[in-house]
C-alpha cells in the first residue's frame, strides 16, 4: 500500500476499507473507480450492521461482595509506611548477609544478574502501573541514549522510560503494557551472557536473553506470554556501544 494512499489500486484500496471502514486515504483512486465506490458503500453498510448486531442486551450489574477481598500490594514506594520501610531495610540487611551481596563503590553488586535485576525492579515499583499514556519520543531518547543502543519503537506501548544503574553501568529501563499488565524491559549493553537466564520473582517471571555483546531482561506478570514480546524486543534493539 502506498504511504500517501494516492497511488492505490483496487485491491489495496478494498483491503484498506475492509480493515478499517474509516480509512480516508486513496482519494485519487476512488474518485475514478465506481467499483471501489460501490465496495466502500457496501462495507460501510455492513459495518453499521455489525455495530448493531454486537449491541447485545446487558444484564443488570451485580457487584460481587468486595468487603473482605484483599487488595494487591501495589502501593507506590513513596506511600509505604516508615514501619514497612524499616522492615524492608532490616530484611535487606539480613538477606545481604545470608546470600553474600558484595558492595563495590557506589552501587550494589549481586552474585547473579537475575538477582540484580529483581532487586532493581523492587526499587522502582512506581514504574509498574497500568496506563495508556506512552512516554514522549524525547523521554525515550533520553532513557535510551544513542551511545548505548538504538531502539525501533514500533512494538508495544512504552509507558515508562529512564536510565538506571545495574552493577554500576547505565541501563535503559523501559516498561511496556503487556497483555496481563506492565512488562519491564532492561537493556543491558554491558552485561554479556552466554545463554538465556530465567528470572523468578515472587509475583513475576521473565528471562534475560543474550543479545550480541549485551543482554536484555524481560519481566512480566506470571501469566504474561512473554514470547512474542521477547521476539519484538530482541529484533528492535541494536547496540551502539
Amino acid at each position, binding site marked *: 500500500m502506498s504511504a500517501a494512499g494516492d497511488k492505490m489500486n483496487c485491491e489495496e484500496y478494498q483491503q484498506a476499507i475492509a*480493515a478499517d471502514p474509516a480509512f480516508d486515504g486513496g482519494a485519487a483512486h476512488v474518485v475514478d473507480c465506481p467499483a471501489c465506490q460501490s465496495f466502500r458503500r457496501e462495507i460501510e453498510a455492513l459495518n453499521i450492521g455489525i455495530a448493531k*448486531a454486537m449491541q447485545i442486551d446487558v444484564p443488570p450489574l451485580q457487584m460481587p461482595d468486595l468487603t473482605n477481598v484483599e487488595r494487591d500490594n501495589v502501593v507506590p514506594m513513596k506511600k509505604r509506611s516508615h514501619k514497612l520501610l524499616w522492615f524492608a531495610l532490616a530484611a535487606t540487611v539480613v538477606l545481604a548477609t545470608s546470600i553474600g551481596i558484595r558492595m563495590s563503590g557506589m552501587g550494589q553488586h549481586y552474585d547473579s544478574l537475575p538477582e540484580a535485576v529483581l532487586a532493581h525492579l523492587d526499587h522502582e515499583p512506581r514504574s509498574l*502501573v497500568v496506563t495508556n499514556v506512552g512516554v514522549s519520543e524525547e523521554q525515550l531518547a533520553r532513557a535510551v541514549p544513542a551511545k548505548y543502543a538504538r531502539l525501533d519503537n514500533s512494538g508495544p506501548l512504552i509507558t515508562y522510560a529512564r536510565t538506571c544503574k545495574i552493577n554500576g553501568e547505565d541501563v535503559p529501563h523501559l516498561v511496556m*503494557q503487556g*497483555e496481563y499488565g506492565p512488562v519491564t524491559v532492561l537493556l543491558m549493553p554491558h552485561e554479556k551472557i552466554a545463554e538465556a537466564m530465567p528470572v523468578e520473582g515472587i509475583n513475576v517471571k521473565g528471562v534475560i536473553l543474550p543479545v550480541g555483546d549485551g543482554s536484555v531482561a524481560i519481566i512480566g506478570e506470571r501469566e504474561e506470554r512473554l514470547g512474542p514480546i521477547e521476539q519484538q524486543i530482541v529484533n528492535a534493539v541494536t547496540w551502539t556501544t
Partner: protein
Amino acid sequence: MNSSNADGKRRQRFDRLVSVYYQDMFRFAAWLCRDRAIAEDVVQEALLRAWKSLDSLRDDGAAKHWLLTIVRRENARYFEKRRLDTVDIDNLTASQSALLAEAPNEELADLRKAIFGLDDDYREPLVLQVLMGYSTKEIGEMMNLQQGAVLTRLHRARLKLRHNVAQDERS
C-alpha cells in the same frame, strides 16, 4: 485522611469506573466467550480482580483499556481452567443460543450468527474496533500483535462476514 475515608473513596472510585464501563465489559466478555452465562461469570471474576489491583491504575483515563484487558485475561483463565471446547456453531447450548435469539430482526440475527461463527482471532479485533472503538494500533497493543497483522485480521473478518451474509441471503 483516615483509613475508612480512604477506603470509602477507593470504593467510590471503583463504583464510578464500573458504572461507566460495565456494559462494555459484559459485551466484550460475551463476544469473547459467546455464552451469556459464562460472560456473567467472567465479568464477576474481572470485577474482583480489578478491585484487588485498583491501586495500580494511576490514570482513570486508561480505565476502559485496563478493565477490558482484565476481562480478556479472566476469559482466558476461565477456558484454561475448564479446558472447554470451542463453540460448535451447529450445536449451541441454551446459554449460547440466548445471545443469538435476542436480535430485533432477521437480518441482524443472521449477522450476529455470522459474527458468532468467526474464529476468535478474527472476532476479537472486530469487537475491539467496532464495539469498543479502538484504533488498529491500540488493538495491536492489546492483543500483542503488529498493526499489520491486526489490519489483515480485520480485513479477513469483514470479507468472511460479507460472504456469509450473502450466502444466507441466497439460501
